[in-house]
């Protein structure tokens, strides 16, 4: 009697497990690794919603390879080591086929060893400092040559800036970007005393002294410009202080790499009018894809005032490319998809075509825009055509001769063209 009970129970459990696994095989799992709590929730929550919107839309179109997509959302809580743990959980426990995630460079660096060890696939949608190319990561945000360098060129050529303030938050992205920019400026004949570099802690709020220094630095008669890699939150008090100390965009313009429509929606933009932002996408760009995307987003999020921004476009492009690559490869197997990804093209939201290059970076147009009183950014300059993302900067001596190429015969993320050797280190 007891035995029979046990037998039925076991059979029931097995059949349940079996049905679960067949159920799981019928969906393609998409991991979403964005912080929903903690400091970075402010930026990353939006990207989680973007991925969910894309998944929903893909399912309406009938999914992929005849299967439905299923989003698996985890919350790494702005805690960098937790990013690595959650990645492991997504790949080994949830068995996701792809992960869209990370914002800060430090979270990506934390995920890298895990994703390479378990051979996962990560789409990273934020502009970053470069100097990296992993086989398991596709970088759909801008590399420095797709944002920082063109912005500096615009300042020098179009606005006649001769004196430079490189202001940033004290962490890896601003430090590396400023190192590249300083090398670039010095190579273009800017004297050392015409460059001022200043770092501030995360969330810095007392800008009086630094803004006064910038004002003094800019009062020598030479046109002065500020290149800001100041991270998210600290920008509000920074711009407020600029406004209060009477520094207008005509006197000392500021070009920012981390300020987009989303950041602007949380602040009074009147004192910011005329300051600049460099991105690969602005909500204000007029194109059919963009109009469709914006209305879809507003409908999905049920808020007509929500804005779109550049990392959202990068997520959009990344997702569409991955979907195409899966169709092309006919499987979600990481190695096949990785090879299928290279060379994939998809329309971007600014009316052009995004191409995934062999170094796992995108070709993107570079837009420079001025902040308007309504919190939107209007394009005032753009590159002709697209710029290919450069994984290893040509302006740093240590990475000058390195290239990334994930197609045969090189198949290496850091191939030294001088010694013709792959260092073998993947990140």
């Amino acid at each position, binding site marked *: 009697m007891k035995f029979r009970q046990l037998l039925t129970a076991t059979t029931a459990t097995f059949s349940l497990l079996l049905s679960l696994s067949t159920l799981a095989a019928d969906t393609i799992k998409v991991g979403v690794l964005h912080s*929903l*709590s*903690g*400091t970075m*929730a*402010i930026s990353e*929550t939006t990207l989680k919603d973007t991925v969910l919107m894309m998944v929903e839309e893909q399912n309406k179109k009938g999914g992929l390879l005849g299967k439905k997509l299923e989003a698996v959302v985890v919350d790494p809580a702005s805690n960098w080591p937790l990013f690595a743990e959650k990645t492991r959980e997504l790949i080994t426990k949830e068995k996701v086929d792809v992960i869209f995630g990370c914002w800060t460079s430090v979270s990506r660096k934390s995920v890298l060893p895990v994703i390479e060890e378990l051979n996962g696939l990560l789409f990273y949608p934020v502009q970053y400092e470069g100097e990296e190319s992993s086989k398991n990561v596709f970088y759909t945000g801008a590399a420095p040559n797709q944002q920082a360098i063109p912005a500096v060129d615009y300042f020098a050529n*179009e*606005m006649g800036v001769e004196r430079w303030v490189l202001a940033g938050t*004290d962490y890896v992205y601003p430090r590396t970007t400023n190192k590249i920019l300083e090398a670039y400026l010095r190579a273009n004949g800017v004297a050392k005393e015409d460059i001022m570099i*200043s*770092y*501030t*802690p995360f*969330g*810095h*709020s*007392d800008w*009086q*002294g*630094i803004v*006064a*220094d910038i004002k003094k630095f800019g*009062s*020598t*008669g030479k046109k002065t410009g500020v290149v800001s890699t100041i991270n998210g*939150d600290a920008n*509000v*008090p920074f711009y*407020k*202080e600029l*406004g*209060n*100390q*009477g520094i207008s*965009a*005509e006197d000392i*313009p500021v070009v920012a790499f981390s300020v987009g429509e*989303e950041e602007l*929606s*949380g*602040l*009074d933009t009147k*004192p910011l*009018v*005329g300051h*600049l932002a460099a991105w690969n996408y602005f909500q204000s760009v007029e194109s059919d894809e963009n109009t469709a995307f914006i209305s879809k987003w507003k409908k999905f999020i049920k808020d007509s005032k929500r804005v779109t921004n550049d990392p959202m476009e990068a997520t959009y492009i990344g997702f569409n490319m991955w979907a195409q690559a899966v169709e092309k490869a006919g499987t979600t197997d990481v190695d096949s998809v990785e090879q299928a990804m290279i060379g994939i093209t998809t329309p971007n939201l600014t009316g052009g075509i995004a191409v995934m290059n062999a170094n796992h970076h995108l070709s993107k147009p570079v837009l420079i825009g*001025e902040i*308007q*009183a309504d919190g939107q950014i*209007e394009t*005032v300059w753009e590159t002709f055509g697209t710029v290919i993302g450069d994984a290893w900067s040509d302006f740093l001596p240590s990475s000058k001769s390195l290239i990334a190429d994930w197609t045969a015969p090189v198949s290496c993320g850091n191939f030294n063209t001088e010694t013709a050797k792959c260092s073998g280190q993947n990140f």
Partner: protein
Amino acid sequence: MVSAGEVTHGEVRELSQRLPSAKLRTLPPIVEQLEQCGEAALPLLQAMLKGDLWVRRSDKLIVIAERGKGAEFTLVDAVSGVQLPSVTKKKIKKIVINNRLRVQLRDMIARVTLASEDPVIRESAVRNMLNKMSADNVALLAKARLTENDRQVLAVIDLSLAVYALNHSTDRSLRLNALDVIDGSLEPVVANALSAVLAADSSGVDLEKDADVRLKAQQAFSKIQRRIDFYELLEQIFYGLSLGSVLLLIATGLAITFGVMGVINMAHGELIMIGAYCAYMVQLLMPNSIEYSILLAIPCAFVVSGSVGILIQRCVIRHLHGRPLETLLATFGISLILQQAVRSIFSPLNRQVISPSWLSGSLEINPIFSLTYNRLYILVFALIVFSVLQLVLKRTSLGLHVRAVSQNRGMAKAIGIRTERVDALTFGLGSGIAGIAGVALSQLTNVGPNLGQAYIIDSFMVVVFGGVGNLWGTLVGGFSLGIANKFLEPTTGAVLANIIVLVGIILFIQKRPSGLFPQKGRAAE
């Protein structure tokens, strides 16, 4: 017969119709032509500079649009100044300008308004030219000088002409005269002009050949430099005091809950955050009187944060009396709960608290020294809050009870003080003050769920440094940390300055564990 005025208006109209189709690159020549129309084009150019110039989609008419009530825009014909019916934003399209155009427009408006009737406008026009003197501007200013009768405007014109003469003239007496005119002026352009005179080439040979001019310039320069140094020192002291006042504000509440009551309240930062959100809510409730909403937010924040504080005290802290470690952990948990609650209610995005106009801009004392209003008011506000609190503690019966309970709980209970009630009220008072600090911070930084975390360490630092249980210690501690930080910042950078101050405090606490002003006598136990 057509009058001259109508002719220029016609021209302006014709030129303005070319604006909507022009690209940013092709706008400058059109704007230049507009300048030739003089005063007739002035309203249009000024609106363009302010970004208020739009084109009506229906008939391509150029209009000056300003946001009226709600979503409607009030329209005025940019050329004739005639009022037009209000429309929604969809019906008009903005004429986008960039920085280069803004500079061009500003210069242009300066040239046109040089002949304005209002001396204030004339002065600002001359000041705009002061920084970019060219031969053209010299001719304009020399002409304007002949008819100018306002002394202040005249002085700026003379200064501008002198700066130009010093660097460009070859006439020795004119240059010596110019040096007399600019003597003692603190305008940055003067210091630049003088350092250009005094500059040496790469081999160390002076560029200026005239010894008299050089000597006089040297004297003028060192005099100016002394004054600049003096004002820079004043500026740094002000920055220090201002940072100190923020530290004082955020630490005052903690000085009561932690200092007087001995409760380690890790949720103090979140009480500050709640105060900041009150400022946001009040502003949302009275959108038409942003100017005063911030004043109303102060009592609101005090009540809301105070009530939350009392709630925390009654529900949690009361039961953990005398167990500091558990209190610490429990309040830390509460802080996380409050943060996530705010994230769920208001979204993780920062909220925008608009600064009223009386809190924006700066009080300009001279060209190199100005005090920003928001910092100035917060400094005064912090001192007011501090003195009111001192009065409450020293002159009211609540204050008497608070002091009695904190000094000897058992004895206070024995003489009939309801210690439980006093505990709750004291905690509420400290929390309420944290809320007030939040209102002040909403004018300086982001209002978001993480606001509190950024300040919790600073506030503990000030209280511990100043001496636990001593309000005056908090005052001195706040200001001295602020000034130390700001004096270190220029030489070490902001990151290192923070670290040095923190290390300094650790060393100081090692030497004097009870802070700057330790409590003496029986209260110390």
